């Protein structure tokens, strides 16, 4: 995981290295400062004259004072630089992670996209990246700083007086053991607590979503009981967990106090016993400072450790996105030219996952000539959409071959193929932006003339021109400010702008009234006659005139023929037809 993630550091390697370097400098300064301070006290304040009487020495005082001020400024400089580089490195790392993920998703095939839910992909690119950014910053700052601080301070303590350094060797294991013990008992409880939190959220969420059910069936009291029992569970577990954690601060304080007392006693004895030669009073003061530094950083380190463990899940989720291998690739020397809009399915079978028991499509053979209009009819779940999505190679067949313009779709360059095959998806999307900007997706160099023409073909011009701002009308995200029928017509216009060799409409006129539906069909027949048109529809009237109608049933072709032929030969077709004509309206 770490190797994969560290690939995203890239150009921020230098900053990532400089930050710890400057931190090391800052730490060194912070450790030296108490040492010089000890000198200042010994040589300045405590300066003894020849008789051994403390008289102080102003010159020394000022000399060491200046050195110390310089140290502080250098330390501040180092610290500031370290902070600056750490910010640069961590935000840069986040930038690259986001970019890598977004790029990876752009290279995903439909199959890859289906694997992750949209919501989870979004969380991974937003929340998880922010988590890792924080963790990374912590790693190159505090996770470097604290151990260094501990090592430096400890070695200084030992340097001042080896025996006194031993105090820490005795005390630290106690602290470590205590912290580990607390973690060991608290961690499982917290994990359990988070799980129950999920349950609590679920209860609230289901209550909100089903609020009409709750009220209709007057089950408010039962819902309350459900909630109270979960919140009660949280209460008891959280109390247990927090009670254990409550021992954290007293433990820490106890260790600090113990160290102070030990240092005081041993220090005093050493100074008095040696007459100040084994340990000076200034050094004892430094000793106190080191004590605090060691223990404080120890605490910091344990917290960083916990934070890093917590961000592990985010890292794992990101790596999943990064290591997903796109399952569609161009072949080695892809074809860049597509002859015409003819399509041929040869023994095509398909399933969405390799281990599925049932195939979505099995043994499909179709032959469509360039320029033909083909209708596809079939009940929900008969794999109509699946069938057409094989033509622009949104998915690869499980077995069998799809030919476009006489060549296997796998031999084409994907971009070339998809430019030639324009597909209006069933679940279509408009993006936030003006109508014009949305239409330009089809062809970014389209002139206003071409745009208008495409919209006329799709019967979209008529309503666009009624908008006060016409083609500059702003479409809200998801196209919420236009009606379903209008949205569908815009999507058709967008697809037409590609001037495709093959145009696929996947149930794209379901919300359009029958009259408009008919005029769209007529426009296409007369203005783009050479384009192969494939129309999936629920309404028989939408496909009635097609050169050829394919009836799909549970992933197999049940019948092919013209409207009249199918009325004769296909029971399914006849059934659908009569059900739609019921009431004797003709």
């Amino acid at each position, binding site marked *: 995981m770490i190797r994969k993630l560290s690939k995203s550091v890239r150009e921020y390697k230098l900053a990532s290295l400089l930050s710890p370097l400057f931190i090391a400098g800052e730490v060194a300064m912070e450790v030296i*400062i108490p040492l010089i301070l000890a000198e200042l006290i010994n040589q300045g304040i405590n300066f003894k004259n020849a008789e051994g009487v403390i008289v102080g020495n102003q010159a020394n005082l000022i000399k060491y*004072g200046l050195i110390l001020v310089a140290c502080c400024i250098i330390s501040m400089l180092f*610290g500031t630089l370290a902070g600056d580089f750490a910010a640069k490195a961590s935000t840069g790392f986040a930038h690259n992670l986001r970019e890598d993920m977004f790029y990876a998703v752009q290279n995903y095939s439909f199959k890859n996209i289906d694997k992750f839910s949209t919501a989870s992909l979004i969380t991974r690119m937003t929340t998880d990246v922010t988590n890792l950014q924080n963790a990374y910053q912590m790693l190159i700052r505090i996770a470097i700083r604290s151990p260094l601080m501990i090592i430096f301070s400890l070695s200084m303590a030992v340097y001042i007086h080896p025996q006194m350094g031993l105090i820490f060797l005795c005390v630290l294991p106690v602290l470590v053991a205590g912290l580990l013990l607390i973690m060991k008992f608290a961690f499982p409880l917290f994990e359990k607590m988070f799980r129950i939190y999920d349950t609590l959220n679920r209860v609230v969420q289901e209550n909100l979503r089903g609020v009409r059910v709750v009220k209709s069936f007057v089950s408010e009291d039962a819902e309350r009981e459900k909630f109270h029992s979960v*919140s009660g569970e949280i209460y008891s577990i959280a109390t247990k967990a*927090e009670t254990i954690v409550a021992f954290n601060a007293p433990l820490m304080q106890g260790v600090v106090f113990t160290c102070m007392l030990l240092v005081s006693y041993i220090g005093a*004895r050493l100074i008095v016993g040696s007459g100040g030669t084994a340990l000076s009073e200034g050094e004892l003061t430094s000793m106190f400072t080191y004590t605090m530094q060691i223990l404080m950083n120890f605490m910091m380190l344990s917290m960083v450790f916990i934070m890093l463990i917590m961000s592990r899940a985010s890292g794992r989720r990101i790596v999943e996105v990064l290591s997903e291998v796109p399952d569609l690739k161009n072949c080695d020397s892809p074809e860049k030219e597509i002859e015409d809009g003819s399509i041929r399915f040869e023994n095509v079978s398909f399933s969405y996952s390799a281990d599925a028991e049932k195939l979505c499509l099995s043994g499909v053979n179709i032959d469509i000539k360039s320029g033909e209009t083909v209708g596809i009819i079939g009940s929900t779940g008969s794999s109509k959409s699946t069938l057409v999505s094989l033509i622009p190679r949104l998915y690869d067949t499980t077995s069998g071959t799809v030919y476009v313009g006489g060549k296997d779709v796998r031999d084409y360059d994907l971009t070339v193929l998809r430019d030639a095959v324009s597909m209006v998806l069933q679940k279509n999307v408009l993006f936030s932006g003006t109508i014009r900007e949305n239409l330009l997706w089809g062809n970014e160099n389209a002139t206003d003339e071409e745009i208008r023409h495409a919209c006329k073909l799709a019967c979209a011009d008529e309503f666009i021109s009624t908008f006060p701002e016409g083609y500059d009308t702003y479409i809200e995200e998801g196209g919420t400010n236009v009606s379903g029928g209008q949205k569908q017509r815009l999507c058709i216009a967008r697809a037409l702008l590609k001037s495709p060799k093959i145009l696929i409409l996947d149930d794209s006129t379901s919300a*359009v009234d029958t009259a408009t539906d008919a005029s769209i069909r007529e426009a296409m027949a007369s203005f783009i006659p050479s384009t192969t048109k494939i129309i999936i529809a629920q309404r028989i009237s939408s496909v009635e005139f097609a050169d050829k109608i394919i009836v799909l049933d549970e992933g197999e072709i049940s019948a092919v023929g013209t409207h009249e032929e199918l009325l004769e030969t296909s029971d399914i077709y006849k059934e659908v037809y009569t059900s739609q004509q019921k009431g004797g309206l003709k």
Partner: protein
Amino acid sequence: MAGPMRNNPANMGKKISLDKNQSKALKRLAAYIWKGYKFRFILVFLCIVVTSVVSAASASFVGSVFDKYISVLIGSANPDYSELVSAILRTGGIFLFGIIAILVQNLVMVFITQNIMKDVRDDMFSHMQTLPIRYFDTHTHGDIMSHYTNDTDTLRQMISQSIPQLMSSVITIVVYFCFMLFTNVWLTLFVLLFVGLTLMITGSVASKSGKHFMIQQQSLGKINGYIQEMISGQKVIKVFNHEEKTKENFDSLNDELCETAYKANKFVNILGPITGNLGHLQYVLIAVVGGILAIAGLPFAPSLGAIVSFLLYSKSFTMPINQVAQQASSIIMALAGAQRIFALMDEESETDEGYVTLVNAKYENDILTETPEHTGLWAWKHPHEDGTTTYTELKGEVRFFDADFAYVKGKTVLHDINLYAEPGQKVAFVGATGAGKTTITNLINRFYDLEDGKVRYDGINIKKIKKADLRRSLGVVLQDTNLFTGTVAENIRYSKPDATDDEVIAAAKLANAHGFISRLPKGYDTLLENNGANLSQGQRQLLSIARAAIADPPVMILDEATSSIDTRTEALVQRGMDALMKGRTVFVIAHRLSTVQNSDVIMVLEKGRIIERGSHDELIEKKGKYYELYTGDTELD
């Protein structure tokens, strides 16, 4: 397991002051704590005082080691350490007392916090159950959810951490200030001066950081919005070969975010070293200035030991000062959360002025009388002002008289609705989205109340009927099936918790759901999760029909599902619906015309008015709006 003290940069540099609402929320919260936990809270306060004093004592002890013991003993040839030892033991005792105080403080705080958390959660949810549908229709689920997650969590942090920390900081500052003052006046003045300087510097850095954080939030919002939109439309991107273009736009947003995030983080990062090193500087300067004063032997000059203690005091004095601002701003932020929680708790509950109740009944000598046992016969118990009570049999007759309705005052969405549904009749509503089909049914079960006009149920004005009883007499199958986590049986039993297993199975059979349930791995005990994600759409609908069927209500409201399901299940669902409708008054909100043809009456709605009514044949004959819809010349949805 609190994380390391993190700056809250978004709030840094903001002026720390409370507005009116925040101080109201603070008072209310204080009242919450004070009312339930008065003595415990006082105990916590005492513990904090003890802790602060003990930690100050530890600093003064270090000074006394130099002054009282080392400097005294250092000259003697045969030093007597017994006094030092007893001083250490004494201090050790004080320390132990301090440690116990921290422990007590923490434990009591855990108790207070967790209890308040439980109370807040329970109160919030309990109250939420009483809120009218209007509340849920006007607030997004995400917003409501965040009261239970984010807002409660910030509240927890505030009660368990920020408030005690702030108290402790303030006490510590006061204590050390006194200590410093007692030790040396000149040095104290010097420290005050220096602290003022430090606050000025850090304040300006913090305000810069706050500004950049606001900008960063904006860029973050922009890129998150972009990611959201593009990932949702990823398939369209691929179909249009738009990957490169999308990447380009993404890159520019990503670069912008990187730049602003860098600036924002930079200022936060350098704040630490600046405060830290200014602290060092202060430390050094005190030593130098103190030393010079001592050497010069000026009046009020400190002793050597005094300087050493003073150094420790000054450090302990400065540290909390830098934290107070931060703690205060995190409290203000949490108050915003508390405010939102209180706002939810203050939402007005659904009112119920109804007094007519639904009771079990039986005919005794041809007179309808109330009976405690379950008879399958129900009656409306109608107490009158003159003390008499009448009983009306529950039949399921519903009438609308000139009903008008507006979600927002002044914007009437239903006009002059008159309709009459006799017991056992099937009434269908047809019309475009937004025509008011669902709204009419919302009026029958009083999810919303009429603006004008009247609705009578079995001849009784529904305003007089207790809401719970009214709703019990109405079964509902909604457009979106909402199942709850639990077993299949529990879900069916939802509308009648005391139903026997046989009743559950009977309801499932009626709804045509028994077949697929028996084929589930654990049958009726199969656990459903995530709104029945392990079932197909059609199966979920069958379950929701069974759920409505088990209560056997005389009136049903059926909102047809719009999402398409496979043909075979659809036939099953249709048959289940038909079985459910038999013998009941039914209101159907139709999304497909094929299902309304056998209704007794079809109401065609347009813009909140009934524009056509009649049977299918009559309406076809009329060649009006219904005819257009039926022949597909008008868009239905």
